[in-house]
């Protein structure tokens, strides 16, 4: 088995009396698409918050790319190659698509403590931003103000911004949230196309999409990872069926 890119070790997060993350264990391997599923309130977003550095765990360790990152701040984690997207779209609504992506590129390309030279002279950075825009299917909207994009396009930009940070591992918090069938389809295609480019850890409620995309699925129930394995194993896992999927759940079959 290849080395894990991300290893979560006995992670604990309490909110008062509530244990939101209960000794969670998780391994995400290099290059895979890993889906994290679980019923509402299972603590998926809380876990993502801790992985990205927005919340500090009470106990346990997060090891990324061979280093313990548990105590690193969010921006330090981004520089090591761990970036996230948001469940509720968090983009720069008043700025055009190109600016949204160019800012993410700026974060990793050299110092931003430049006080004199006009940022607009960095033609290459904007060209790279255009490449990322094309990658996420927004090449027709480069100069469009992000807030004026459709919901689906904003979700694509959401992923694009995370992608532009040059992350090795993308934490995607419900990328299909609030999407119609056609928009979801576009997102699935987009995420498929990222395979090989970076590793994805994806929280998603759309089971159809999860079973089509994921190489590995982990199931979170009440803050604990109760199962982790290939989609076929998870589908047949008795505990998972009882806790989450429901006995009559049959995802659409898709040939791999």
């Amino acid at each position: 088995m290849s080395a894990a890119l991300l290893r979560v070790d006995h992670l604990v997060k309490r909110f008062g009396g509530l244990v939101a993350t209960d000794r969670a264990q998780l391994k995400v391997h290099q290059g895979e698409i890993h889906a994290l599923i679980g019923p509402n309130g299972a603590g998926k977003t809380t876990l993502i918050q801790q992985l990205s550095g927005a919340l500090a765990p009470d106990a346990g360790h997060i090891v990324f790319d061979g280093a313990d990152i548990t105590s690193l701040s969010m921006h330090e984690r981004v520089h090591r190659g761990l970036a996230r997207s948001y469940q509720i779209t968090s983009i720069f609504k008043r700025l055009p698509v190109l600016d949204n992506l160019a800012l993410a590129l700026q974060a990793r390309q050299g110092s931003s403590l430049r006080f004199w030279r006009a940022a607009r002279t960095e033609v290459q950075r904007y060209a790279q931003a255009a490449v990322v825009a094309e990658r996420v299917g927004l090449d027709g909207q480069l100069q469009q103000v992000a807030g004026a994009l459709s919901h689906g396009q904003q979700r694509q930009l959401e992923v694009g911004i995370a992608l532009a940070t040059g992350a090795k591992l993308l934490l995607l918090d419900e990328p299909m949230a609030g999407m119609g069938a056609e928009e979801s389809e576009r997102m699935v295609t987009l995420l498929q196309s990222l395979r090989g480019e970076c590793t994805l850890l994806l929280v998603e409620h759309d089971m159809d999409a999860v079973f089509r995309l994921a190489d590995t699925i982990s199931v979170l129930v009440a803050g604990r990872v109760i199962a982790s394995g290939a989609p076929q194993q998870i589908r047949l896992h008795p505990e998972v069926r009882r806790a989450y999927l429901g006995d009559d759940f049959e995802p659409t079959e898709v040939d791999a």
Partner: protein
Amino acid sequence: MADAPLNSAAPSADAVPRSLLDHALSLRWSLPLLALLLLFPWLAPLIGGDFYLGLAARILIFALAASSLNLILGFGGMVSFGHAAFIGVGAYTVGVLAQAGISSAWVVWPVAMGVTALFALVIGAISLRTQGVYFIMITLAFAQMLYYLAVSNKAYGGDDGLSLPGRSIAGFGLDLADDRTFYYVTLFLVVLAFVLMWRLLNARFGHTLQAIRENETRMEAIGFPVYRFKLIAFSMAGALAGLAGVLLANLSSFVSPSMMQWNQSGLLMVMVILGGVGHLWGGVIGAVVFLLLEEVLSHYTIYWQFLLGAVLLAVVLAAPNGLMSLLQRKGRA
């Protein structure tokens, strides 16, 4: 210099976006304005003499102070309600050094700016850990602390303020005691500071600062140490306000605690809001319009503050984003 947007009409490559991150110097009307300001010492005697030279210097100084507030308030989204404190620190540094017998402008002015930057660094380091209303309150609290410190410090005049023996000494044939020379030195420094702010806003740092205003959480999530950037901007704004304080102390050869009272911070905020929050020219336009209105209205009636309030109300209702937004809307139509 040609690489930054000098005019909004400047051509740009298709692949480079134009957005609210861009700030044009608008040479079409900023150059005539500069020419007017350069000629003003010759024009002033025609309309009433040296009094107007002093008023013009005062307006320039407040244009600098308001612009420095706009840097953090308008471009950084940091609603600081204690900005006058930095004017006070700058001014008091001049006063304290003058009492110690140090009055060379080449020493006093940079030291004053450095001291103010340091105060801003410490105040910012604590205040910027809070958000929203708490940030407003904590910056106000720090400013009031400094105000009461100045009021209670009898060694430096306490409540009565501190009279300076005269303006700073510049040497090189520059006699700052001469109003015309002082006016030109003030004009030079204010224009220099303004050009620096313009460059900064269009540079990477300015884009970062404005993007933090737009979406702070996301900036952190794409890898920017947001707190550090805000603190740097806060300190720079403090240093520029400190320079305004230095000039103000020299203008009247007098330093007083009232320079840093909370209503002075409010005044700077009103100027920024009047001119345009987050507009390059917002602080300048706000200071010019406010101080000219004050001057004109107080000529006609002792109830000028009432009238000034009415005018401000009208402006805010007609142009919620300040006078600059009104000009821009006209420009596009």
